[in-house]
């Protein structure tokens, strides 16, 4: 076998016994190959000295258990058992799923619209139902929170009212507070009366607007 220096790298990696023998014969006449071969042999000896072995008693049982579980029949959940036999990738099922999705979306839209419609405060209803009363109470609570925040900001300006405008705002807020107190008292004994609730919301709105005007005047 004619072995060239160019083949020695390949022989080092995966050469056959015959190729190794041929390389060693060639190395006797080629100094470059001889040096490479000696270096490789030294490296192999050093590596074999570094080799260590230790016991791994738990490794194989773990691998064995994993293989056993993989080969055993799957333990399906109720949901998988329920839908397992349906062949969900068929065209028939895809069509059905699309139709159902459409129905669900339509139903959700109707539900959402109907629900948002119910959130509106009826304009002419004499007595509110429970749900509307709860919605109104939520709105009132939101107004009260907003008003408290605005009032905290505007209060120093109002308490030290040095201008006629601020004095006027303060007077207006007192008038509104009086009306709100009156309406709240009435709503306490007549909670679902539609007019009382609408009027109370209107007064809250006006108080909020007035406080915002006070703050705007302060900024100016």
């Amino acid at each position, binding site marked *: 076998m004619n072995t060239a220096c160019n083949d020695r790298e390949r022989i080092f990696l995966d050469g056959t016994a015959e190729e190794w023998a041929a390389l060693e014969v060639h190395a006797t006449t080629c100094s470059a190959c001889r040096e490479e071969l000696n270096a490789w042999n030294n490296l192999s000896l050093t590596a074999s000295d570094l080799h260590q072995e230790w016991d791994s008693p738990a490794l194989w049982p773990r691998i064995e258990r994993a293989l056993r579980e993989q080969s055993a029949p799957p333990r399906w959940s109720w949901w998988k058992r329920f*839908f397992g*036999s*349906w*062949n969900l990738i068929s065209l*028939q*099922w895809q069509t*059905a799923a699309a139709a*159902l999705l459409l*129905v*669900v979306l*339509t*139903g*959700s839209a*109707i*539900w959402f619209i*109907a*629900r948002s419609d119910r959130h509106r405060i009826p304009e002419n209803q*004499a*007595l*509110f*139902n*429970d*749900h509307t*009363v709860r919605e109104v109470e939520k709105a009132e609570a939101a107004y009260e929170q907003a008003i408290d925040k605005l009032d905290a900001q505007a209060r120093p300006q109002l308490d030290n009212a040095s201008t*006629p*405008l601020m004095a*006027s705002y303060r007077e*207006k807020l007192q*008038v*509104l507070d009086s*009306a709100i107190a*009156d*309406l709240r008292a*009435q709503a*306490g*004994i*007549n*909670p*679902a*009366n*539609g*007019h*009382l609730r609408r*009027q109370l919301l209107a*007064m809250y709105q*006006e108080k909020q607007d007035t406080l915002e005007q006070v703050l705007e005047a302060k900024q100016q």
Partner: protein
Amino acid sequence: MSHPVHYSQRSAAFLRAAAVLGAIPVLLVASAFGRRPAQNEVTRDFQKTVTLTGNQGVSVDHRLGRVVVHGEPGREVKISATIRVQDSNANDAQDFLQKIQIEVREEGDGVHVRTIYPESRLPHIRIGGHSSYSVDYDIAMPAEAPLWLRNAFGNAEIAGVRGWAQMENSNGALLVRDAGGAKLVNAFGKIELTNATGNCSITNNNGAVNVTNVKGTLELRNRFGEIVASQIAGAATISGGNGRVSLTQAGGNSSVSNSFGEVVVRNIAGNVSVTNSNGRIDVAEVSGGAELTTSFGAVEATRIGGATTIKDSNGSVHVTEAQGFVSVNSSFGTVKGSQLYKGANVVTGNGGIELTNVQGEIYAKTSFGSIYAENVKGKFTAQDSNGSVTAKAIEGDASVTTSFSGVSLEGVGGKITVENQNGAVDVTASGSSCKDVSLRTSFSHIGVRLPANAGYRIKARTSFGRINSQMPITASGAMGGDSLEGTIGNGGCLLELTNSNGNIDISKAQ
């Protein structure tokens, strides 16, 4: 053989899935529409008819509900009421419903309708329910009969009641149309009055007021809310507070007072008086005079038939087409006037003055603003301290005093007098006949242009400047580098030019 079995299994599975998934939107929709409150609402109707005689009227005393009253032909009063009670307990609801009474009393002055609610209805908390009530009225009454109405916590709507009506509401709107004379009072609700044949008085505390087409006079007060009034045949007296006021088309002397909102007035047949504290005033189309006062807002007055008097502290003033004399007193705003047919007297502290096309005399005074006048038929008098004075085409005499700025007068037909201290004086006299000219300044230049054929006796003096003349002067008396006495032409008028530290130039007007 196995195919039918598989098909059957798949069909069953398909139907099962369709049933489960299809139920979802059905349940959603059902939940949206199907939820109803577990409240018991009970209703009772009340009906009663009585007949009025003579001058009898109708009185209604109500609260917690809506009242609708409408005038009808005939003498009958038809009272309809709907009583509603809502409660989580049906028996309680029915019991409370029966306790709400509609009292109808017939007395000498007419029919008295009153709603009586059970007393001591204390607040109580129940799980899942509220106890509430309301009474709504619909009353038909003779259109010409008087009406007294008092309502609270509900809207009141009155239509076609042409007898005298007094209506008082609180916490609800008061809506009146096709009325006679009326007195309307409200608190915390708007008032709307449309078409009234008599005099009307309206008082509101906190709500908008809108009045249209009143054949009589209108007296209107509102504390916190906008006012809009139009088509008032008689005089209108409006007192606003913290909202905008608009008055359009009033048939008599009208007045508007307001505190913190714009006032707009249009088409007044008579005099108008507007007093505002902190808002703009805009008045136009007034056949009589106008007195307009505000503190912190601009004033616009247009097409005023009589005298116009404006007082403003901190806003600009603009007057256009005033048939009468215009008097403006301002502190910190610009004053502009044009087409003033009887002249103007304008005094301002720190604003400029601009007056054009004035038929009469002008007196303009400011301290820290400029004065500009053009096309003035009468006399022009300007007093300024720190602003320039410019005037063109003045047919009458011109008299100007200022201290620290320039004076420029062009085309003055009458006598010219300028007293300046630290500003230049530049004057062009006009007219075929000469008028006396007296110009004085201390630390600037004096330039005067005279008509070519005019004759003057000239007296010019400056301490640290030169006297130059393009016109031939026949010297008389003392003549030096800093003083000159002599005559131009026939020497008919006096030309007195006095300076201290500036040149004096005499030239021919172009």
